[in-house]
């Protein structure tokens, strides 16, 4: 397996959707190829960082305006 081929498979690898044989080929490659290992790890890091970063709460006034808006629509029929 070449580095460029690895690249196409990485999302499936990360998501655990890769066929076992391919997965093992890929891991064998990474044992000898530090750049690819780093690439996978930084790709995973990208995903976790976005997951972590996404927690801004709903502002109270936005919540109140939403409920007012819907109530009004409801009352209008």
């Amino acid at each position, binding site marked *: 397996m070449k580095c460029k081929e690895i690249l196409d498979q990485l999302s499936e690898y990360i998501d655990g959707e890769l066929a076992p044989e391919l997965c093992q080929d890929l891991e064998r490659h990474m044992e000898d190829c530090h750049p690819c290992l780093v*690439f996978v790890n930084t790709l995973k890091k990208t995903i976790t960082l976005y997951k972590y970063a996404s927690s801004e709460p709903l502002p109270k006034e936005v919540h109140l305006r939403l409920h007012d808006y819907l109530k009004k629509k409801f009352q209008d029929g």
Partner: protein
Amino acid sequence: MDLSDQALVEKAKTGDYQAFEALVNRYEGKVYRLAMRMLRNQEDAEDALQEAFLQVYRGLKGFEGRSSFSTWLFRLATNVCLMKIRHRETEPAPLLPLEDYLPRHEEEHPYIQDWPDKPEEVLLNKESRQKMLQALERLPAEYRAVFILRDVEGFSNAETGEALGISVAAVKSRLHRARLTLRGMLSSYFEKMGNGGEKSSSSRGCEES
């Protein structure tokens, strides 16, 4: 005990407004977050939030429950956001020049530097969050939507496809390109963030064959 979405939907369908409000309370935070990430602007996100729940309210009677309530809701909300984006002039072109964000290859191997081996809460600060949002904003809307639903909100491939009206294969291919592009956009920033020099550990994930 909290009622299930389905139970609330059934009640709301019969005109029980409190049941509808309970659904709104349950999901408004998530929908707002989605809209903020898609639209990057509080005013537009609030508009989209109101529009999405109005559509839910009006569509409830016809909602047959073939998909879960949350998938349906996110489909409506995502489409409201995409419509808003289509009316903008400053959105990125729908083509994703992925190649610009892949590592340079030197002979056989890619040239690549590691990111600092630090926990997420250390890597995330005001500046890095800003960089991440800017990167997300530069993704074409269709890719951004897939990335947000799948990786941020934790939808499955099938749910994401259903929400966006695209095939699972399309979800996977867009997700892959979105992830690679975001990584590429952020790499020079995180590489420079001060590296302790530790090598990242190997990560294994193969199932036994």
